[in-house]
């Protein structure tokens, strides 16, 4: 195993472990089974979105519209559930609704070559305001009995959410690493021109990645919605930044071509734990945002520091020690 390849992931993991050690000493109750289970369930939707975001970032693009897409999918899920649609069909429908919105981004970015940050900025505003206009912020209430926890018991539902999330995560992680489809994403992100010459259609890869991003957002919205018996009209605000931050903290390069889903998992775990950790440590919640910002910046600094060491090590072995 070549550890130097996973340097960034290892440094993020180091930070995570450090937090866990502090927690183990100061607030051992953090590691109660109940708390770990809650953390897992609460961060499952974020993880799904971060998986999609990792691929988007790997091809060198970005998607800041996922928070608004999430809100649209949540409301759509509630509405579809009220028509009495069985759960598996609902799952598929939301997958398609999300994929549809993602494909719209993908077409504009991949085929028409528009800059992703602008396209998704437009969609961020567009979907959110369209939803507000139509629903006027109303909640979807009186959902059918079989909606919450997929009609199972609470623990059964929780298990299903975790199982679905982990299956998706493992499938994508394995595909990215081992299958042609996954390697194409890295190829396009590393050097679009070289990929083209190698016979990879960049636009199609970008389109598929955005479509998957949307579909994963849809599933994430559903995984989030089934935990409750009502669906609020304005969810997912700021979710895009959370996902991007997790991916970057997990070691992916925003310029594309570098990053792994294992890193993303660590990033989600790190940022998803901070809020809860602060409460357990008794630190005032006012500082939460500042700490999150600091973590992103520290990840950047460590990234650069590690990068420098590597460069020095290659050109001048003596210099690396200094």
């Amino acid at each position, binding site marked *: 195993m070549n550890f130097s390849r996973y340097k960034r992931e290892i440094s993020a993991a180091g930070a995570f472990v450090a937090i866990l050690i502090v927690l183990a000493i100061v607030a051992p109750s953090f590691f109660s089974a109940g708390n770990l289970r*809650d953390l897992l369930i609460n961060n499952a939707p974020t993880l799904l979105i971060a998986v999609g975001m990792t691929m988007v970032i790997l091809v060198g693009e970005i998607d800041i519209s996922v928070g608004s897409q999430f809100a649209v999918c949540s409301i759509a899920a509630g509405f579809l559930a009220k028509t009495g649609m069985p759960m598996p069909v609902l799952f598929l429908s939301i997958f398609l609704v999300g994929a549809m919105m993602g494909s719209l981004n993908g077409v504009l970015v991949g085929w028409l070559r528009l800059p992703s940050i602008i396209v998704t900025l437009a969609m961020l505003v567009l979907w959110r305001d369209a939803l507000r206009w139509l629903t006027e912020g109303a909640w979807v209430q009186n959902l059918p009995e079989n909606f919450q926890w997929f009609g199972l018991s609470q623990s059964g539902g929780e298990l299903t959410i975790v199982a679905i999330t982990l299956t998706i995560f493992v499938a994508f992680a394995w595909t990215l690493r081992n299958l042609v489809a996954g390697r194409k994403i890295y190829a396009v992100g590393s050097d679009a021109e070289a990929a083209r010459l190698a016979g990879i259609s960049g636009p199609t890869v970008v389109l598929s990645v955005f479509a998957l991003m949307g579909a994963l957002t849809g599933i994430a919205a559903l995984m989030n919605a089934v935990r409750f018996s009502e669906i609020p009209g304005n969810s997912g605000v700021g979710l895009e*930044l959370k996902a991007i931050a997790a991916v970057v903290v997990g070691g992916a390069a925003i310029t594309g071509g570098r990053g792994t889903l294992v890193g993303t998992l660590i990033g989600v775990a790190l940022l998803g734990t901070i809020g809860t950790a602060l*409460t357990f440590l008794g630190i005032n919640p*006012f500082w939460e945002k500042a700490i999150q910002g600091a973590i992103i910046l520290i990840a950047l600094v460590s990234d650069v520091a590690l990068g420098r060491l590597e460069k020095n090590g290659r050109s001048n072995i003596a210099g690396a020690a200094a």
Partner: protein
Amino acid sequence: MEEVISPERPLSTEQSLRERLFPNNEWILLIVLIAECLIFSVTGSNFATSGNAFEITRLAVEIGLLALVMTPIIITGGIDLSVGSMMGLSAVVMGSLWRDGGVSMPVAIAITLFVGLAGGALNAAMITKLKAPPLIVTLGTFSLFRGIAEGLTRGIENYSGFSPTFLSLGQGYVFGFIPTQLFIFVPAIIAVWWWLHRTAFGRSFYAVGFSQEGSRYAGIKVRRRLNFVYCLSGLTAALAAVIYVAHLGQAKSDAGTGYELTAITAVVLGGASIFGGRGTVLGTVLGLFAIVILQNGLRLSGQPAELAGILTGVLLVVTILLDRLSRASVAKPKAASEEEFEVKNWQVGVLSGVIVAAALIVAGSNWLLVRSIKEERGSAAPTAAANTNSPAPGKKSVIAMMPKAKGDPYFISCRKGAEEAAKELGAELLWDGPTDLDPAKQNEVVEAWITRGVDVIAVSVENKEGISTVLRKAKEKGIKVVTWDADAEKDARDFLINQATPQGIGETLMDETARIMGGKGEFAIITASLSAANQNEWIKHIKQRLESKYPEMKLVTIQPSDGDRDRAFQETQNVLKVYPNVKVVMGIAAPAVPGIAEAVKQANRSDVKVTGLSLPNMCKPYIKAGIIDSIVLWNTGDLGFLTVFTANSLANGTFKPGDKSVKAGRLGEIEVVGDEVRLGKPFIFNKENVDQFDF
């Protein structure tokens, strides 16, 4: 996100006038702008007046300054997401220096500008020294700056009471009609224009944007250029914050939330390329006004404000698309090896298919959704009030009513009652307000109503100091002003429709909690956002009541929910584990209470009860299940109903100051004490009575 950039145009010496004036197809925007002005002069009341023109520019100044400096940043191929957060940090720094530090205003401003510069320098250092991507660096400082602002003020501090001289910077007029801040904004536009387009130093930023490596070889000090723009950006954000504070009359940590995205939208709409090397100051200014006029015009035409967001999004995609296509058609015959831009036939086919399908699905699902929601509401007709002309005075009174936030379920339920009353009275009701948490938006809406000309303005006030200035202005213009739900300064309004005082709410909440707990034990509070003014006021009274009446009870923690149900859920899970002795969790934001209840339910903590301030409908299942013991609220529909009735009576003169009561339709005679119309005491909803209410 790299892209090969083709030469802008053939290197011929002759350029048409169009190309010289609008190198990036800014003329599209000019046409949009003219179209907007034409349409809104017909549909909007008093849109095409000089007064409105000046108001629009006043509202554009803060975002305009940010956009102006964002232009050179985007030209170098960078981005700065931290400017909005920097405004928040600068505002609280200035406020605290002035109020708590005992520093004079000019010195406070100077230090604030320095803080802005320092923040910009932090961005610059990370970007140039560490060679980190600007997007990520400023994403980090976006959280960091806002976080520091919230941490410093504990979210609670709201600095106000600034001197009139300072406030005139943001609210005053020079020569009686030109807003003061234009004397900063217009020179700033000219200066940046001169700098970018007429100096070698400015032109060098384009070179940096085209190719950093190339410009370095050409002897341009790239790092120095980048340091310069990011520092300038921080400084400008601080300046924008100073103007913002003077404009609103208050400094809080939430200043400038979301401004970075509007600023970037303006710049990109103005033809700047996000990859760098392209963009003009003229384009940015046009882009800025295209957005601001759209918002203002829709408001004056009585159209829903959400349309502005939808149209801006569409406009953004269409302009870059047109730009893309026109560039592609120029570039193609020139160089065959040029980055290929072939859209194959089958792709076009699939493309159109997908777009049509997506549009159909979205339209279809939305239509169904709207229908189902409307049915649920018992077909309460929405009055978007698409008026055509200025209302004939004396016939039908126009009542403009503003909630704190349009999407909040609490206000949605108020609206129902207001619409019912308006229908009964035959009055025209304009219902508009902020969609986002942005204190500046309320002022903007009132300004638009003054311009439009309405009979009564009824406001649920978010920021007391900030909005009072515009309300006074409305009164001067002969518009009756009432406040409802939350009050402004007393002299800025005629009447307050008072459903409950903050003290009444705080004490009722505390008494309920004490009743449930039997007067002893630990409890926790989940609030809205940490900087929410109302909630902080209630918490103050809750704490006072706790100290004076319930010595055996202890408030262990206050956690934020940001008005988000899911966040409230998560925070409650944490609270239950960290503070296992908590017996009651009190939620003081409507969406938070169901989130808390769900968390308690899922944790199987039947020993913990929930109470708080919320709406009966969203809490009903939990109240019936016995998880929520009780919630405190008034009849929100009646509040809206009473407000419209009072406003209407004020407008037609049947109700005036000094009267002891006001007639309010089905509510009967309502008591008036001094300048307060009193709806009655807060009501407690519980298992027994919750079924009688539907809101």
